[in-house]
């Protein structure tokens, strides 16, 4: 069996792939951390408009170190910048955008995604301090909810599962998962494999996936820039 740690995509490559599905002018919310990388890989000629929960739309990239204005941050509490078109608003208006279905895409991380679209990404249920933030709002608000994630956990357990064992963030909300090995859609309670790395076999991919991978015609090759 292939050692998937040798062939899997980097986070940057996963983010790049997710970025290819965002159309010009889309309103997009990127989860804190890894999902934020998606913003770096917008295809030439496309410009998404990014929303952050704490009340900023159409913000610019991080400022140079030392140039931060700590009144101008994103949901991850990282400094961002103003650019032509930026708008500020309060938290109720910000989540009106989210809950009201005005975002085209939300891209989030995941502990687990189930074949029915259930998402677990806020708590491993193992004690510690619970913290949910805006994830539960985003998963029921954006027109399309996608996940970027490693295909398996650090200790090799599947993150794509028949049923989530961790506490849910939302039910039936995820429609596409970009993993380190594949692009998988959630359709009618099934995982449908859309793209996979050419260098992994169907059998090996199925072996590290916790639920049956359906195909709808042959999956396409998942091809990303080598150098990311």
């Amino acid at each position, binding site marked *: 069996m292939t050692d998937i740690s040798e062939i899997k995509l980097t986070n940057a490559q996963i983010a790049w792939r997710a970025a290819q599905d965002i159309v010009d002018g889309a309103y997009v919310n990127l989860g804190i951390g890894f999902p934020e990388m998606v913003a770096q890989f917008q295809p030439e000629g496309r410009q998404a408009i990014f929303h952050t929960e704490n009340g900023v739309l159409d913000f610019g990239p991080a400022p140079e170190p030392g140039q931060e204005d700590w009144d101008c941050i994103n949901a991850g509490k990282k400094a961002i910048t103003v650019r032509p*078109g930026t708008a500020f*608003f309060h938290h109720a208006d910000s989540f009106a955008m989210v809950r009201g279905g005005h975002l085209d895409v939300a891209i989030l991380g995941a502990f687990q995604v189930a074949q029915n679209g259930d998402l677990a990404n806020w708590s491993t249920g193992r004690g510690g301090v619970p913290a949910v933030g805006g994830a539960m709002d985003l998963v029921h608000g954006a027109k399309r909810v996608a996940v970027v994630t490693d295909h398996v956990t650090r200790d090799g357990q599947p993150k794509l599962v028949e049923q989530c064992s961790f506490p849910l963030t939302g039910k039936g909300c995820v429609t596409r998962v970009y993993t380190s090995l594949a692009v998988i859609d959630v359709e009618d309670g099934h995982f449908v494999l859309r793209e996979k790395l050419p260098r992994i076999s169907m059998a090996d991919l199925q072996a590290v996936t916790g639920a049956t991978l359906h195909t709808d015609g042959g999956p396409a090759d998942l091809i990303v820039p080598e150098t990311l």
Partner: protein
Amino acid sequence: MDKTISSLAGAVADIPDGASVMIGGFGGSGAPLELIHALIDQGARDLTVINNNAGNGHVGLAALIEQGRVRRLICSFPRSADPTVFNDFYKAGKIELEIVPQGTLAERIRAGGAGIPAFYTPTSYGTDLAEGKPVEEFEGHAYIQERWLKADYALVKAECADPHGNLTYRMAARNFNPIMAMAARRSIVQASRIVPLGGIDPEHVVTPGIFVDAVVEVTNPAQEEVLNREGAVYP
């Protein structure tokens, strides 16, 4: 991305018969007269219109009603200085009317934009307008359950817009316009000025562009109050 459209006709071109259309404004203040007149020219009929009022004189919403385009009106206050058009249609049974308390109308529209399917309000409890609506008690007081209100289109009048649809308004002409922009599937804006991106201070944006789909510039827009004093009739 550029949401500007060069003509009023183009801005309203895709509104089909039977559409629900929110129209901003409180009386004439903030009423998007040029968009309404473009909709009259365009010809869509059998419309459901959501507005605070029911038109005044023979321009704007009154003209749309007079042209027989409005099947149903949802409003709080169908009275005006010259309500002849609406009154005649209503008494002849040619238009349906749903009366909603003004604050409930505003909150239902805001709820539509904010993804809140229902909420409770003390307003109208114990009155005829609460008939048939669920009642629930919270902390010893009775409240009425009201549902969100959404529409296929919103016609919005703004003062200033940029190409991404960020908007400001002029004085009390703000009224229902920002919340209607939130609650419609497609929000069409007439702005007195379109400025380049960055031309609106990010702190002064009232409606962020995410709520806006199309912007058309109408410099020196007409005021309903002034037209009516001149006895104007559209078309």
